[in-house]
């Protein structure tokens, strides 16, 4: 007779077998049996957050920075609904999460019981799949399948809803054999013919560009190495989406910077004018494409993606290669080597005019800004932060808004998995809990949340988590007292009617840090900035850094919505030269 385990034990046995070392969670009535079992499983450490959304974002930060799935454990009802934002965020940005929720006992489901909600119903559109476990004998299989669904194909969040009575009931524990294909779903669906076609296009291109995204990061560090190899072999320029930053070294000459709404002039113009676009693991998001009818009109487009539904969703492509980036790039490089296609030389000659053109665009220096000696320019703050941390293996998270774009523009990433930001959903309040998750995964590394004062207040309570677990995260707040991106849009498009975008009665962040039992530092002038940043870096405790920046600064360059890539709005320096009046700006 095999040993019988309770549902709660089975949950932890599954987590053990999946090599889960940390879970982020918050207890409550419907998960108490699981919490009761925690003490018997030493290999699994529970991180107590202060709000379930924080558990979700922390698990996302953990997952993004390690490539492993993040796990969160929350209770029924409000516990589950609080986690919905994080699940949706993970769904949009393809982050593997396994969310375990408690549920009211099966006999009470449907009776509007205390803390009951239709968790699987609510989370159906924001998970890859979810399960309500109504039979204890299914639990182990469902748990293992949950990990499989979350981590295979295009990664994403899944949810397992376990009623309280199931957590008490007993069953045998079966380990799980991975199916080769889940319901016939295969992820590599390309042929050698596709690869040959790609190489043919590469060898003919005169104005090519690589456009890379988060798929490269999700495919593992090896994929980034292969990408670098291919980009160096071809000599092509490369640009990256927000999520793809780090898969190619930002300080390399072939890197044109980020593209899209706040991307560089050279990246966007190259996208517009190219004759071959090779999309590697990006999804033609609307912040990237701008006006879709005028998106890169003359180019042949290649799309390499693991998700067949990403192909032709927003932009029609000429060659689709459905597969894992790592495997597609491996085949491509192998074929190049085998055919001894020596285009590394011939190609570079063929595209030399293209590089000349790119250098002209580059000379616009679209990320430049007007410096100041009195106030700290936010871009300057990021630049200094980068200069003072670039020798350390730094992990950066962000909130959402201007500071996020400035961080993406001015902080240079050279390795994958070092940059955690909410791109698809654009969740303010993501960065602080994500930093908690990153620091848990990398206890010895420097973890900085580049934040805005409005965003960070949305999940500020997680400072308490950071203090409890001695996580020396650094919250670097670019404080302009505005919801900066909202203010920028209002300035440019709504006749400077700054409706509700100013935050009066902000807390004193330094005192707030002290109240949480961590360290508060404030920088007011450019002169003292470096010293204060160094002070922050030398503090081995959580720090809230209140960096008072220029309140009026806008984030440029910018593609105004509804415009194609070649109609960018550049920064104030350029605008002065072109004498774009205030009226002209509101019209864009």
């Amino acid at each position, binding site marked *: 007779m095999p040993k019988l385990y309770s549902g709660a034990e089975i949950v932890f046995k599954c987590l053990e077998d999946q090599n889960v070392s940390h879970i982020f969670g918050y207890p409550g009535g419907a998960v108490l049996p699981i919490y009761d079992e925690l003490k018997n499983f030493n290999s699994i450490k529970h991180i107590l957050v202060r709000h379930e959304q924080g558990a979700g974002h922390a698990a996302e930060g953990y997952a993004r920075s390690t490539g492993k799935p993040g796990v969160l454990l929350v209770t029924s009802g409000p516990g589950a609904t609080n986690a919905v934002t994080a699940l949706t965020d993970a769904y949009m940005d393809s982050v593997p999460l396994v969310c375990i929720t408690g549920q009211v006992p099966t006999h009470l489901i449907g009776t509007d019981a205390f803390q009951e909600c239709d968790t699987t119903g609510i989370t159906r559109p924001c998970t*890859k799949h979810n399960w309500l476990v109504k039979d204890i004998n299914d639990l182990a299989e469902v748990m293992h399948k949950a990990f499989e669904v979350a981590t295979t194909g295009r990664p994403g969040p899944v949810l397992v809803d376990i009623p309280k009575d199931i957590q008490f009931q007993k069953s045998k524990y079966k380990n799980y054999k991975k199916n080769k294909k889940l319901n016939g779903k295969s992820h590599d669906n390309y042929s050698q013919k596709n690869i040959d076609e790609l190489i043919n296009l590469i060898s003919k291109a005169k104005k090519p560009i690589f456009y890379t995204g988060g798929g490269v990061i999700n495919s593992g560090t090896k994929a980034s190495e292969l990408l670098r190899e291919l980009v160096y072999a071809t000599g092509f320029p490369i640009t990256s989406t927000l999520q793809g930053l780090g898969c190619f070294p930002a300080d390399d000459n072939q890197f044109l910077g980020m593209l899209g709404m706040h991307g560089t002039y050279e990246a966007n113009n190259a996208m517009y004018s190219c004759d071959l676009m090779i999309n590697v693991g990006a999804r033609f998001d609307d912040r990237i494409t701008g006006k879709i009818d005028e998106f890169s009109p003359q180019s042949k487009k290649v799309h390499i993606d693991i998700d067949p539904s990403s192909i032709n969703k927003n932009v029609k492509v000429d060659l689709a290669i459905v597969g894992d980036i790592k495997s597609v790039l491996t085949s491509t490089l192998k074929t190049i080597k085998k055919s001894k296609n020596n285009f590394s030389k011939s190609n570079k000659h063929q595209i030399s005019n293209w590089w000349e053109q790119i250098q002209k665009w580059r000379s616009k220096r679209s990320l430049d800004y007007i410096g100041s000696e009195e106030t700290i320019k936010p871009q300057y703050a990021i630049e200094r932060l980068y200069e003072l941390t670039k020798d350390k293996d730094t992990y950066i998270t962000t909130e959402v808004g201007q500071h996020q774009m400035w961080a993406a523009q001015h902080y240079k990433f050279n390795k994958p998995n070092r940059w955690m930001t909410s791109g698809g959903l654009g969740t303010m309040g993501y960065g602080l809990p994500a930093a908690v998750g990153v620091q848990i995964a990398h206890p010895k590394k420097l973890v900085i949340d580049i934040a805005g004062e409005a965003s960070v207040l949305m999940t500020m309570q997680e400072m308490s988590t950071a203090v409890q677990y001695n996580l020396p995260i650094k919250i670097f707040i670019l404080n302009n007292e505005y919801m900066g991106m909202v203010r920028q849009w209002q300035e440019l*498009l709504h006749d400077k009617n700054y409706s509700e975008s100013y935050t009066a009665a902000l807390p004193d962040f330094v005192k707030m840090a002290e109240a949480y039992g961590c360290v508060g530092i404030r920088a007011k002038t450019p002169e003292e900035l470096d010293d204060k940043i160094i002070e922050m870096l030398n503090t081995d405790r959580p720090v809230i850094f209140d960096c008072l920046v220029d309140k009026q600064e806008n984030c440029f360059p910018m593609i105004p919505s509804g415009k194609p890539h070649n109609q960018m709005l550049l920064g104030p320096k350029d605008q002065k030269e072109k004498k774009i009046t205030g009226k002209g700006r509101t019209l864009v």
Partner: protein
Amino acid sequence: MANSKSAYSSAGKKQKLDTHIIVVWVDNEAGVLARVVGLFSGRGYNIESLAVAEVDQKQNISRITIVTTGTPQVVDQIKLQLKKLVPVHKVADFKREDKNVIFKEMALFKFVANNGKLNKAFEACKNFNPVILDKTNKSNVIQITALRREIDSMSKNLKKFGLVSVSRTGAVAMTRGSEIFK
């Protein structure tokens, strides 16, 4: 752009809509219909009709037939998005004009009228395999199988013969010949 004060771009050109019949084979498990239907409503796709039932009791496979309209791009998306759902095994897509596919809907008509009218009603249905399922001296229930638009016009035309109630299924589809969809 002058009139667009949005953080999003304006909609592109409008394209022609086609009617497609999408057939989905799914694991018959709790919530699977909600997943399929939720995908349609969540992404703004149309459902004109829907028919669903288990077709394989041993393997618990249900067959869902959905009539939808969309641009070619949208129909492609529907198929690809459906295929991503975990309980979905396979997805077939037929154009309504496709001669190699049989489409049928069933309808039940209840007539309340005198005998003369009831006979005329049955007569009017005779092209659509009518079966009288219930009969009293002042009413009957007739079952017909036909195409959607045929049932549409029938339910209009039969009013004069005392049609008081209509109940109809969504369309179901099957390929002609010996081929089956894999």
